[in-house]
């Protein structure tokens, strides 16, 4: 038929009375982790609305803790129910996958968030303002820094207890992100966890200007990247006529050829596929902080309230890598020969840039930011090894890394001077003399980052590189090893600073944390050492969880 006629037919078709849209069938039980957390978040909002201030903090803490624990329990239940392996399938009309990787990552995210929430709730570090203990969040986010309103708020001892529900929303988003099984869900989840994070970044109690600046940067760049991602989604949709992973994959593999020739200009047009894929990839790489989409990381990590930084650094990475894995393994395996070389490049550049730039950093948080970039590179090396080993190694690495990161940032919150946290490295000189314990703990984390044997960092690195090597990516391993050598240099530098240089007279004090932060740090150390010495059980977990459902 003629072209015009075809177009007309479309018009008329849409003019028909709309068919009944069947109510979707949702497996609530299998989505329960997400739902529980969301519920907790909503409750949290209500709490903010109705409870008196003094009660909010404990209640929020309790609420979110319970929520997260319950969520975790749900994950365990699902895993025990075999959803991780045998009964893995796609839930919610193909929107969400319930399979090994999803559950493993969700479990990790929930645990990490639980620990992170503890650090959120820490109220012993800052000196009591007007007799009221305060946490590291702004008295009133909306108030102008240093303005009358803020002073009043401080005097009144306000604290932004909204962070708890906000964080919970973010967690909910993160839970969906790695499980998202169509591009739309992916995008929504992305936004759902990004937006709260933007807010959280802006809520620091001290150095609010930095905090707000980081929020703005994160927000603008985040929005920018998600726009790219969305456009990529659009193009992929245009390519495949569907946004479900399975659907796209089918078209990619050429199993389905839905087109009547007139649509050949779009459907099955590889240009759309490649560009779209690249853009979506970029959106995810932005989240994991891979070069060249990494530039927000240092600024945001430095400016954000340290607990939030820890939370972001750990949880976001897990979620984002989860999504990345799923995209590459479920949607684009057919395209392997196109994206692998590109990802090689990205991985190499990321490892090197992260390691090299970190060498000259002078601020602990920025240092950790760059180190996180380098680690993103290492993980990418594992991602690129397109094999079950690759998946499980990445899962393991994420679990190991996230706890180390949390612990490290938790330690950072302890080292304080008059201006709040003393994050400039020069201030850390001689910390080992002043408080050997804290310094030792931090040293442990640094060594784990550096990948010294008997720490989780080593096991993870080994697993990832091993997968890469077996996947035939030997060059990646070499570069990885080299950049680890460079990275070792600055981790060691910090250790030298802490232990071998004389303490400064005006050096910072090390605050004695409450049980909350202590728990966070303790857990961090414990996980670091356990995964370093006896990783077999967890490797098994990751191994079993290494299969995606299609």
């Amino acid at each position, binding site marked *: 038929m003629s072209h015009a006629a075809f177009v007309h037919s479309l018009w008329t078709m849409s003019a028909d009375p709309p068919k009944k849209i069947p109510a979707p069938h949702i497996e609530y039980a299998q989505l329960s982790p997400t739902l529980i957390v969301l519920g907790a978040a909503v409750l949290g909002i209500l709490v903010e609305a109705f409870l008196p201030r003094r009660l909010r903090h404990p209640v929020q803490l309790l609420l979110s803790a319970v929520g997260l624990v319950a969520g975790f329990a749900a994950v365990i239940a699902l895993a025990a129910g075999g959803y991780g392996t045998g009964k893995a399938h796609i839930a919610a009309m193909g929107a969400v996958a319930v399979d090994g990787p999803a559950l493993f990552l969700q479990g990790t995210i929930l645990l990490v968030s639980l620990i992170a929430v503890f650090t959120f709730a820490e109220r012993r570090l800052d000196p009591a303002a007007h007799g009221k203990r305060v946490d590291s969040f702004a008295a009133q986010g909306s108030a102008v820094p240093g303005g009358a309103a803020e002073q009043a708020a401080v005097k009144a001892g306000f604290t932004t207890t909204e962070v708890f529900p906000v964080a919970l929303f973010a967690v909910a988003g993160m839970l969906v992100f790695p499980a998202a099984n169509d591009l739309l869900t992916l995008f929504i989840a992305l936004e759902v966890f990004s937006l709260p994070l933007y807010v959280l970044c802006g809520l620091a109690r001290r150095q609010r200007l930095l905090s707000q600046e980081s929020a*703005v*940067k994160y927000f*603008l*760049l985040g929005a*920018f*990247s998600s726009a*790219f991602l969305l456009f990529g989604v659009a193009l992929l949709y245009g390519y495949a006529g569907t946004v479900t992973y399975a659907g796209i994959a089918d078209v990619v593999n050429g199993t389905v050829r839905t087109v009547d020739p007139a649509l050949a200009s779009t459907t099955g047009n*590889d*240009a759309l596929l*490649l*560009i779209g*894929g*690249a*853009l979506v*990839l*970029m959106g995810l790489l*932005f989240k994991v902080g891979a*070069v*060249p*989409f990494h*530039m*927000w990381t*240092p*600024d945001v990590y430095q400016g954000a309230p340290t607990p939030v930084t820890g939370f972001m650094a750990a949880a976001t990475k897990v979620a984002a890598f989860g999504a990345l894995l799923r995209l590459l393994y479920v949607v684009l395996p057919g395209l392997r*020969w*196109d*994206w692998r*070389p*590109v990802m090689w*490049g*990205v991985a190499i550049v990321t490892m090197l*840039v992260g390691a*090299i*730039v*970190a*060498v*000259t*950093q002078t601020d602990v948080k920025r240092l950790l930011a760059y180190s996180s970039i380098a680690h993103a590179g290492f993980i990418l090396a594992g991602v690129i090894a397109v094999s079950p080993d690759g998946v499980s190694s990445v899962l393991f690495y994420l679990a190991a890394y996230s706890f180390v990161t949390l612990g490290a940032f938790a330690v950072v919150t302890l080292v304080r001077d008059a201006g709040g946290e003393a994050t400039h490295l020069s201030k850390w000189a001689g910390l080992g003399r002043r408080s050997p314990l804290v310094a030792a703990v931090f040293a442990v984390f640094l060594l784990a980052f550096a990948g010294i044997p008997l720490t989780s960092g080593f096991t993870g690195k080994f697993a990832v590189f091993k997968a890469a090597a077996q996947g035939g990516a030997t060059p990646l391993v070499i570069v990885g090893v080299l950049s680890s050598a*460079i990275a070792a*240099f600055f981790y060691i530098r910090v250790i030298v600073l802490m232990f071998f240089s004389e303490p400064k007279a005006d050096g910072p004090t090390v605050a004695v944390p409450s049980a909350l932060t202590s728990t966070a740090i303790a857990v961090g150390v414990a996980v670091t050492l356990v995964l370093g010495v006896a990783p077999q059980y967890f490797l098994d977990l990751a191994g079993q969880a290494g299969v995606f459902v299609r």
Partner: protein
Amino acid sequence: MENLIGLLVAAPLLGAGLLLCGGPRLDRAGHWIGTLLAAVSFALGAVLFADLLGRGREDRTLTSHLFSWVPVGGFRADVGFQLDQLSMTFVLLITGVGTLIHLYSVGYMEHDERRRRFFGYLNLFLAAMLLLVLADNYLLLYVGWEGVGLASYLLIGFWQHKPSAATAAKKAFLVNRVGDMGLSIAIMLMFTTFGTFAFGPVLAHATDAGEGRLTAIGLMLLLAACGKSAQVPLQSWLGDAMEGPTPVSALIHAATMVTAGVYLITRSGAIFNAAPDAQTAVVTVGAVTLLFGAIVGCAKDDIKKALAGSTMSQIGYMILAAGLGPVGYVFAIMHLVTHGFFKAGLFLGAGSVMHGMNDEVDMRRYGGLRTYMPVTFVTFGLGYLAIIGFPGLSGFFSKDKIIEAAFAKGGTEGWILGGAALLGAAITAYYMTRVMVLTFFGEKRWQPDAEGNAPHPHESPRTMTIPMVVLAFGSVFAGGLFSINDTFLKWLEPVTGHAEGNSPVSALTVTIGTMVVLVLGVALAWAQYGRRPVPVTAPRGNLLTRAARRDLLQDDFNHVVLVRGGEHLTRSLVYADHTLVDGVVNGTAASVGGLSGRMRRLQNGYARSYAVSMFGGAAVLIAATLLMRAV
């Protein structure tokens, strides 16, 4: 009987252990303990000697295998002793002279607060030297070889507070190490050639090996000998070694240790016999050294250094003889023994003189001492006569034979060697006379020393004179006793073998020749120093004299070439290590740092530039992906 051999070595070793670890509580009795143990091993030696004499000429070899030392794979080194006529000779010489010198030292070192340690070192030396001559394989010999080196190091540097002494000691050890290098390479060669380095098999199978290999071994052994026996080119240490106490010079640097080289060559005779080229090298070294030493000896004003030069030259004779092969071995050893007597005697005499002259060593400040220290004069005089080869005294017999043997080498070689030997004899007569005259004749040229107290020459105590007397007897009669119907030859022959050389000139001619040159030498010396007064400060002298005073510039050569060169080398290496080798490493680190600093500036804090990088990144990503598809 065999077990006694072990004790022979053990006794002085025990002494060394006691005296060195015993601590101050042994200060009072220490020297006597040392002397006693030396005497004990002499006694044991005597007993064994008697035992050997009791046996038939052919089975005069005792062996005792103690334990397997280093068994690794095919490499078997044992600690085992072999006592035959050759080692027996040495044992008696070492322990005998050794004991005497212990005795002498009791008096000589009386006023030294570290006397105990001195005797400890002496005992250590005895033990090492005995090990050297008793070992039944080259590796164990090597142990003794370096052991005596150590002892000599400790003893030369005994007065460590004198920098000169410390330096001399170090020099001696280092030069010897060069020699030792030769020995160890020789042993390796033996191992690769024969699969073992025990005397028995090696010497038995020497002829089976290729001549080239044997020559190599021979040359390496020669190098070792040069180091230990102060032969050219490794002789430079001996003169400085005189920094040590005189008894040390007498025992180690005259009578025993320095003759170890001769022992080594004689012991390895089987190898040298099969390697004529090596032998040629040996005789050359011997001839050169005997002249070299003699010339140096003429120029020195320091009595001990003069004697040292003489020692060099005399050992030159021995090496020369040993190099001649079966013709000379016996005479080499014979001269070695006689030399052991008279040279030790001379040194002890010199020591006694110094003892009486507040340790003045410059002969130009002696003179006319014969009346003040008669015993010393007489014993020294007898030693003098012996060394210049005065008919009927020890030196005469032994040296004469060597000169004969040299001629017997035959051909031009024979004439050259013989001539050199004769010339050496002449010079010997000259410089020894010079020493004699300067010291004991002429008018008194004493001068108050640095502290301004004038010397009061006096005879030395008994403990010192007795050994001198005994040695004097030795230097007078030993040669004769040995030569009466070739006792010594018959005694050694089973070990070293012997061949009569066919000399182009008759023995008589040689003897007359020696007499003539002897007279000439003496007369010349007398004319120079006996007739006219001797200036207290040495005249500038002609070129040769000045060169000879400086050991014929050998040290200067070493200094310029080795020391300076070495210093430059090390200094530049230290620099290179820091700048180059380490520089590369630090350079890498630095460049990474620089790179980091530069890349860091990209992070300029402007959100928009971040956005640019993202945009660019996206572009690249897309481009790359498309490209991948394109290719």
